[in-house]
């Protein structure tokens, strides 16, 4: 039997923007087992619900993660609105959908960049992040914040976007589409990139399903799960095709995210066309009494917020289950049997967001 050695990976590692520690058990160059350990970013803010009023907690929920912050805030608000039976105005629903899709664009472009960096294509990383700045500019113009927006509140949204601005955004999407087309061409058709990603980190459909993969990780293996199909916000009134691929390797996951970029711009265009006029918020009185599970689709997969109130200003319990947490068991499955040099690419391919995972 070959001698086994353990190589530590992380918490501080050049390809990881965030700390996670993996103990890689190697036989020669081959990874035979992986032992993850987490806890470097645990803050424990779910307990803050006891110290912050339920209206203020929106901003804490938003800071679960700086990449998909808007969707976290929105999911929490939806939960409270369902408990208190608040009817959110139509226009606010559409605005939430538009901002959610911009978040997805921002997150996927960010991921494409980091992914390029993980296989050593730094120029591509720079280009992806250059394009991403266009999305952040839209966020800054419409909400005032680049990565943390704070524009969602219980009962609607905090500010409206004028119809002129919406038209301008629609025009901006054409430019964005063109640039993203150029970018994703490199990811999907460049021979060296393809060589690096094809048949690396394979997970079968069954394994992906059984280990609880969600989001693009699951869809890359052919498991068609997308919470947007539940029709929350304005998604029920918009048309979109779920993107799936059947190979289950790093290339498939890259393909799914690349195509989702264009699905997102399409959704934003539809929403801008259909958005009705009207108020963007309703007055909220009283306090939540009851419990609710909210499911929403984050850029990384299914997000679940559980909240429980007892009729006072302070909630009793908040629990957040984030997509990366459920994507870690599939990751371990993918890593078993791979080459040591492919580890960074495979780890990045699930789009890990550790600050979500550990909360």
């Amino acid at each position: 039997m070959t001698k086994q050695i353990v190589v530590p990976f992380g918490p501080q590692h050049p390809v990881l923007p965030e700390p996670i520690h993996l103990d890689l058990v190697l036989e020669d160059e081959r990874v035979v087992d992986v032992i993850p350990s987490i806890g470097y970013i645990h803050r424990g803010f779910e307990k803050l619900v006891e110290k912050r009023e339920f209206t203020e907690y929106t901003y804490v929920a938003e800071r679960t993660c700086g990449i998909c912050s808007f969707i976290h805030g929105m999911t929490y608000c939806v939960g409270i609105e369902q408990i208190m039976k608040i009817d959110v105005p139509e226009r606010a629903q559409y605005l939430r959908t538009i901002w959610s899709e911009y978040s997805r664009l921002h997150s996927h472009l960010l991921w494409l960049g980091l992914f390029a960096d993980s296989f050593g294509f730094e120029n591509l990383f720079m280009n992806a992040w250059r394009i991403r700045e266009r999305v952040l500019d839209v966020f800054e113009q419409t909400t005032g914040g680049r990565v943390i927006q704070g524009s969602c509140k219980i009962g609607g949204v905090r500010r409206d976007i004028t119809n002129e601005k919406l038209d301008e955004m629609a025009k901006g999407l054409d430019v964005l589409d063109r640039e993203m087309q150029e970018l994703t061409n490199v990811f999907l058709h460049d021979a060296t990139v393809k060589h690096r990603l094809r048949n690396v980190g394979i997970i079968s459909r069954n394994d992906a399903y059984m280990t609880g993969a969600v989001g693009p990780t699951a869809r890359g293996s052919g498991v068609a799960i997308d919470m947007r199909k539940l029709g929350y916000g304005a998604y029920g009134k918009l048309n979109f095709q779920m993107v799936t691929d059947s190979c289950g390797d790093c290339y498939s996951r890259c393909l799914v995210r690349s195509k989702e970029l264009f699905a997102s711009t399409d959704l934003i265009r539809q929403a801008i066309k259909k958005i009705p006029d009207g108020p963007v918020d309703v007055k909220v009185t009283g306090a939540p009494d009851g419990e609710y599970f909210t499911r929403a689709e984050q850029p990384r997969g299914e997000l679940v917020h559980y909240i429980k109130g007892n009729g006072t200003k302070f909630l009793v319990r908040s629990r957040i289950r984030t997509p990366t947490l459920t994507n870690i068991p599939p990751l371990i499955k993918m890593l078993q049997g791979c080459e040591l040099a492919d580890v960074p690419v495979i780890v990045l391919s699930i789009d890990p967001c550790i600050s979500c995972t550990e909360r």
Partner: protein
Amino acid sequence: MTYLTKSPWIVHYDCSSCNGCDIEVLAALTPVYDVERFGIINTGNPKHADIFLVTGSVNEQNKPVLKNIYEQIPEPKVVVAIGICATSGGIFRECYNVQGGIDKVIPVDVYVPGCAARPESIIDGVVTALGILAKKRQAMQEGGSTTPAKAGEGR
């Protein structure tokens, strides 16, 4: 503002930030903000670094990691605390697993406020750090040491 003859390299570590500041640190390196024009490169190896950027607040688990990275950076070095979490704990201050700003573990030279800190203010913080770095380097050349406990280590 000061001019250096050497290119300062940075190392970045995420203590327990929400990611917002981390992606802004990375955004500062990319074409729109482009700190490489100042000769600044993000390195993964603390032994190559001069400037230590830290985001997020400390807890029991990441304290030793933070300390370890800090000690591996050769003298002279400067530490920049990015975002309100690294400064004082920010919105998560009252959480049970947050012990406060990073200055509880390592000495901090520059504090950059904001939640999340904007790339412009991060660049401003790093440029301020360059001035402090130049002073520390000069002090070292004149024979003194900037941090007495670690005199002469690493260089």
